[in-house]
Structure formats: C-alpha cells, structure tokens
C-alpha cells in the first residue's frame, strides 16, 4: 500500500524544495543568455576561468598525494589518537572557510608559525583550496577501504606481495570508483572555494582571482558578467552531480 503523507509534513517539505530550487531557477531565468558567450570569454573571465582550473587541479593533486595515504592510515592502522585524527580531518568541513583562511595565514603567512612566503600567490590559492577539498577525498577513500574485503590484501601478501606493492596493485584498483568519486567532489569543492582563498590568497587578477572571487567582484561592476560566470559554475556542479550519481558514501 502506498503511504499518504500528512500535510503537516508535506507543506514544510515543499517549502524546503522551494528554498533549494528557486535560486537555481533564478540564475537560469536571469542569466544574460544572449551575451553569455561574450561575457564568459572576455579576457577577465578567461583569466579567472584558466586560473580556477589550474588552482582546482593543483588542489586535487594535493588532496590525492596527501589524502590517499591519510585515508589508508585511518582505515588500516590502529594507533592511539586515531579518533582525534579523524576529527581533525573533518574540521575543514565544518569550519567557516574564512576562518580557515585566517588560520592558514597564521600558519603559513609571512609572520606565521611556519612561514612559507606564499601568501597572496597562486600557490597560496592552491593550498587554501586543498585545505577545504582534502576531507572529501579522505572520507570517500577511507569509506571504501573500510568496506573492502580484507581477504584480497591478505591473499596478495601470501602471494609474496609487500605492503606497498599490495596497496598499488590490489587496494587502489579495488577502491578506484570511490577514488574517482572523492576526486570529483574534492575538485568541485576546490573550484567553488571562496572564503579561505580570498582571505589567504587575496584576489589579484591573473594570480589569485579565481572564478568565485571574480564573480563576487564583478557583481559590483558588471552584474551580467557575474551571472554568466555563475551559470558556468552551476553547470559544472550539475555535471559533477551527474557523474557521481549517488556513488559517494561517507565513511560509516
């Protein structure tokens, strides 16, 4: 028998849908469709677009290099303080990005704890985006590692394969779908990063002015250009969602 929902649940649910859907529809309705191509291909837009692709790719690479080993450590090793480490990995998910940017500045800025002298450079933008993107990759891969049948790794060991060879030849191929899903999410998160980037890396055209910061600035000068770029990011988000199609699971 089909369940009939009570109005007291259906009405708030409908408002929820409206809250999520109306802004999306608004962007599509208000978008300057006729001049869209010109606006998106203007020199400023193209510079921001190129920089965004570079930075988000860099952030994804950073997340892969650091996040896959971190996920393996969390999923395969037992050590004191593991719960604290997992909580630490989750911090960027709940931390306001601006606070993340301030924290990065205090850590790696000119007068920071470990001055890297990269504040307000492209590398700073990559670091800021990597900071917020990392948890998505770690959680996705860790979940897959925990769900994976350990027997495959054990058989590999009895076949003479050392721990790293097993990781490379057995573990990674088996978690490849989760790795792809986590990468897509981490990349999407990096692409849209605004708060931490603008705080730690600033908004210098061609150096650290990525799409989101460009959109924010253009909203004051040329609203149509801002909306056009917003459409671009919206389309990318929908594409990522389509690629994932529910394939993403958070650990536990």
């Amino acid at each position, binding site marked *: 028998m089909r369940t009939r929902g009570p109005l007291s649940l259906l009405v708030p649910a409908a408002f929820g849908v409206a809250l999520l859907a109306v802004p999306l529809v608004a962007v599509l309705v208000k978008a300057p469709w006729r001049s869209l191509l010109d606006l998106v291909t203007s020199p400023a837009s193209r510079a921001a677009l190129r920089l965004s692709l570079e930075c988000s790719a860099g952030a994804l690479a950073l997340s892969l290099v650091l996040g896959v080993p971190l996920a393996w450590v969390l999923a395969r090793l037992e050590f004191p303080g593991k719960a604290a480490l997992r909580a630490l990995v989750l911090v960027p998910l709940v931390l306001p990005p601006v606070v993340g940017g301030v924290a990065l500045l205090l850590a790696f800025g000119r007068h920071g704890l470990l001055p890297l002298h990269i504040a307000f450079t492209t590398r700073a933008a990559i670091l800021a985006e990597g900071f917020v993107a990392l948890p998505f990759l770690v959680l996705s891969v860790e979940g897959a590692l925990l769900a994976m049948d350990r*027997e*495959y790794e*054990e058989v590999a*060991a*009895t076949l*003479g394969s050392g721990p790293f060879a097993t990781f490379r030849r057995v573990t990674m191929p*088996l978690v490849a779908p989760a790795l792809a899903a986590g990468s897509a999410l981490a990349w999407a998160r990096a692409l849209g990063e605004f708060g931490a980037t603008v705080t730690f890396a600033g908004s210098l055209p061609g150096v650290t002015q990525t799409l989101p910061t460009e959109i924010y600035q253009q909203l004051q000068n040329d609203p149509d250009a801002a909306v056009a770029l917003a459409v671009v990011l919206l389309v990318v988000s929908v594409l990522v969602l389509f690629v994932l199609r529910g394939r993403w699971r958070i650990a536990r």
Partner: protein
Amino acid sequence: MTALQAALSVRRGEFQLAVDLRADDRDVIAVVGPNGAGKSTVLRALAGLDRCPGPVVIDGTDVSRRSAEQRPVAWVPQRGALFPHLSVLDNVAFGIGRRRGRPLAQEWLERLGVDALAGRRPSQLSGGQAQKVALARALARRPRLLLLDEPLSALDTTARADVRRTLRSHLADFDGVTVLVTHDAVDAASLAGRMLALADGRVVQEGAVDDVMRAPRSPWLAALVGANACRGRMSSGAITLPEGGRLVAADLPADDDVEVMAVFAPHAVTVHRERPRGSARNTWPVTVRALTEVGGRVRVDTEGSPSVVAEVTPGAVDDLGLHEGERVWVSVKATELTVVAL
C-alpha cells in the same frame, strides 16, 4: 626432516588457539571441527596473517618472525578471493613475477584444465572454475605449505565432484604439505590422509582419516565426520572391495575398473541376528569387535568384508543381544551410499 612443525598459539579476545602440528612432505591434513573451533585460524597463523609467536618451522627454518609475503606458503580462502580487477591469467601471474609471470601462469591454467578461461574476469567464472583458478594461483607459487580453507563448501554437487577430482590429482603431485579445512566427511576421506579435530581452539582427536571417521571420540565429531569409507574398484555395476565383498549404490560410475570410494553414515547401517530378507541391497555377515557408547548411542565396530561401524540405540543392543565376538548380519541401503570416483 619433518617438513612442517608448528606450535600455534593465537589469542583473540576470549578465544585461545593452542594447536601443535607436525607433517611430512606429501601429507594432506584435514582440519575439522564445529564453527568457531579455530580451523581457519590454524591456516591464518601458518600463513602469517594472524600473529602467532610460534615456532612455525618449515624445512628446518623457523618462519614465525617472517611476514606472510616472506613465507613459502600459499593460502586459498573459502571463496578463492580472485582479484576482481585482474584477468584470470593475471591473477595466476600475480605471485610469480612480471617477466616469467604470464607464460608460467598459462602453463598452470593448462594443468588445471582452465586455460580457456585465461582472458576472463573472475566475475565471469562459475564457482568451480574460480576455485580451480585460485588453486592454480596458489600452486604456481610453488609453496612448501598449501593452505586450503573449505575449498569445496561453496560449490554445488556437480561442481563439487569436479573440483574434488581436480584437487585430488594435484594434491597427489604436490610435494609439500597440505592443510585443508573441511566439514565434510566425503571431502576429508577422499582428499586427506590425516585428520585433526578441533574444538574451542584445541585438538580433541588426531589420527588417520579413516580411524577418526570410524571412531570419533565425541558425539559432535561423530555427527560431523563420523562415517564409513570403503575404497574399491568398479566391476560389472558394483564396487569390488580389496578385502572381498561387493557394494551396490544408487549412483555408480558406469565405467569398469574406475577406482572409487563409498561413504556412508554409521546410522545407515542396520544390524540383524539372522540374514535379513528386506530390500537392502548390501547385506553381509560380520563379527562384532567392540561396543562403545557415545552420546546416548552405541557404536558397533564390526569386522567383515568390509569392516564397518554401525550406530544403534542402547535398546537395540539389548533387543539383539549384541556382545563382542558375536556373528551378526549388517545391511545398508543402496541409496545411503555416496560414491566418489578417485
């Protein structure tokens, strides 16, 4: 030199395994026992997958400090654990090394009769095919110690007989030690020479497979593997036994001169004072050798052609007036025999 000598002790929470194991080359040891007895743990400790202080001595070398990848051991878990992302050929080549891997893997697939499957993915194999590929992968490593965890339990009857035959012929060629976990009397009798019965992490009985099967010392062991196993040869539609006598079964191989084994449970054997006139096809005279009470039932150990163990109730012993040294008749229905081609 003893090929394998191991003192296994594994602790996992409340569970404690303490098993001593000793084997010579070409020994096939069946490890039996109820769920949770520690059968799989024995294999994992030998393989180096579960921490165990040892010593585990293989060919005179204590390998207990070595990790799994450095032991001359191959382990086949219950469902084979073929790598799903690799082809059958690459699965078998996995443990051999890149250069020699593929040609040698192809050879092993041929030996096990599954070379036609080389290009397939494990997901495209039947259960029996997957077991043979897993066996090829294990044997291709040329291990000194082969560990098989219930290799036949996941298979249906037909595949089971087929894989059992393959296993048997390759275990005969294998010059190392095989330790095999099973819970099936037919599999143990047709594959292994020795049997190790475990309960709660300890050895409760050990000996030649036939002896343990015919004289299990506890009721649960009798229920698990207690059985009569008679080896013989097919001739004109019946099994001819080397000690004399013939057995008929419902399902028999048609070809003459095939070596077979008939397995039947002690409770399928009925005991009579006079020659019975019923429908049972297999009837022969025997002498009662011993009467033992096990778990509320009486095991009647008899000598004849063949010698068998019958299991009857204490009431039946009284009614029949059974005593040691007495001449009686036993019978088994043809449908009670499981016949395995060897």
